[in-house]
């Protein structure tokens, strides 16, 4: 049975991927790459997409799960959309936020489509197909949280996704979703309450004082 970790603070985890999206130097570099790509040169566009693809992969993998058979297609579609949306980007925010917004929308749509398809056609309840090797127990728990996102309303789900899954701050989520920080905090508070109840119902959480 999967259990919530003890009330101890997690120790070091190699990689610390959540710091990637907030790395200021990387973000500045990505903005520069976006400006260069706007010049119409395919090499510059390729370099820009090369900088964007880790963000896109992370968003898509987070939303869809690493085993989703549509994952690579979704990533590629996101890159194409990002390239085509670039002329509309006015650099009022970070390019990484713009990319995250596009990727998140696409990834959510892909996840919903894949779920609908699997419900229609799958005769066996196979879990999603992994595109890579991963820890099945960990992914089972990750899927648990992803399933919660399907149950939340879209705005709460997006806020929780960006905060818990992708590690964005409330300010960044406000920029990405186009709402105030106060609204983000409200959505997060409600979303986190739902998360707690969801984990409790799934046998993963624990009640206060337990």
């Amino acid at each position: 049975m999967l259990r919530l970790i003890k009330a101890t603070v997690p120790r070091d985890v190699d990689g610390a991927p959540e710091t990637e999206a907030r790395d200021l130097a990387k973000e500045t570099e990505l903005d520069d790459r976006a400006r260069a790509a706007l010049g119409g040169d395919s090499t510059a566009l390729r370099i820009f997409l090369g900088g964007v693809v880790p963000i896109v992969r992370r968003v898509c993998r987070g939303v869809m799960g690493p085993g989703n058979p549509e994952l690579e297609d979704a990533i590629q579609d996101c890159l194409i959309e990002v390239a085509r949306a670039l002329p509309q980007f006015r650099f009022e925010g970070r390019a990484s936020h713009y990319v995250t917004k596009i990727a998140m929308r696409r990834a959510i749509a892909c996840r919903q489509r894949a779920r609908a398809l699997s419900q229609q056609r799958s005769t066996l309840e196979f879990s999603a197909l992994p595109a890579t090797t991963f820890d099945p127990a960990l992914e089972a728990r990750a899927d648990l949280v992803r399933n919660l996102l399907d149950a939340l309303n879209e705005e709460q789900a997006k806020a929780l996704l960006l905060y818990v899954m992708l590690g964005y701050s409330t300010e960044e989520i406000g920029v990405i979703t186009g709402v105030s920080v106060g609204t983000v905090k409200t959505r997060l508070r409600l979303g986190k309450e739902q998360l707690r109840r969801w984990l409790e119902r799934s046998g993963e959480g624990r009640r206060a004082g337990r």
Partner: protein
Amino acid sequence: MQAGEQFPNHPNEELIRRAIRGALDANDRTALERHLAGCPTCAAELEARRIFQVSLARDGEDDARDRDAVERAMANIARKAALDTHASGTDEELDRVALDRAMAGLGERKTSHAGARRFVRPAIGFAAVGAAAAAAIALAVSHTPRTTTATATAGSVTSTRPLILADGSEIAPEDAATPIQISEETPVRTTVRLSAGAARFRVRHDDRRLFRVDAGSIEIEDLGTAFRVAHEAEGRVRVTVSEGRVAVVSTLSRLRVELGPGDDRVFSDTAAPGKLVEQPSDATPSEAPKTAVVPVRDSIHAQLRAHGADDPAGLLAAADVARRSRLPRAAVAPLRRLVERYPKDPRAPSAAFTLGWVLLTDLNRPREAAIAFADAERIAPRGALAEDAAARVAEAWQNAGEPRRAAAAARHYAQMYPTGRYIVLMRGLIGEH
């Protein structure tokens, strides 16, 4: 008692981040542990963040996957640019011959409609393939996305160029004088204003979002479809549906008419305002529905022409376009070709798996799917997809109504992966026989 009442001071974001990174000092750690012991909400948040930090960490193959994704995206962008420029002048008959020739060369098994697709002018067809390939390659090299497409993702945009919205919906004005205005684009509603001219729409349908075209006296609501809207003389508006359904709604009376595939109707609000009166069609040849249908197959034509269709990258690209164009049948041949001709290519296992997936889920051909999944496992028995391919073989045979074969495949899975992810399901299949 609620956690927030017992512990009003939840840890701030920075503290949580440092906790996830394991960068807390002893005091902070103690304080946080004390808080988490009584606050299940924060404990749940921290647990979820930790799960995803590990789950989303990049693995050793991600760099290679990223490079491949970028290259394939670049190739698709260039080819789409070429297609956008080239498609309008396509001779449908020659294209069909070219496609048939190319698909025949790829080994596609044509059974159902071979008679209807006889090679009318094969010599011309071959010439067309060569000429079109040269043209497509030249266009792909010389056009960047900015020159042929525009994209709207937020706010209001007016453009006379083809637009691709952030959700992937496409709007193609039919001439430079057609103004397109994205007057609203939110998660619940997209409204496109077409005040003159004509445009084609290919909408990514989303049940939670209303996609509406405001064409003056009428509105057209997407119900999951590709369609064309054209202003004509005397305030009439022609709506032509090529796929799916649309609802045409009078802006005055809100009367509503639904149109389906092949419907080509002209509406006028002048003669009887709000009545949604259908007018007789007097379309000129250039306005005929034939030209309104988005030429989905052209994208596959372009792939085949541009690549010569016989190297792994070209075959994969052709399959990608076919799948994205919702023509899974057209993806079968290039994938099968790749697997058969380039079994040692690193992309072959993925191609075999994709082939199995398309056959199983899109085409309902489970027997062939089982063979394709078996190929995926055979080509790379220690590959990342091997376990899933082995399980899918069993699923495909089960779907094909072959329980004995399904059980055999399940036994193979159980032997290879006794603690595998699908072992419970596999045991179930074995147990049935």
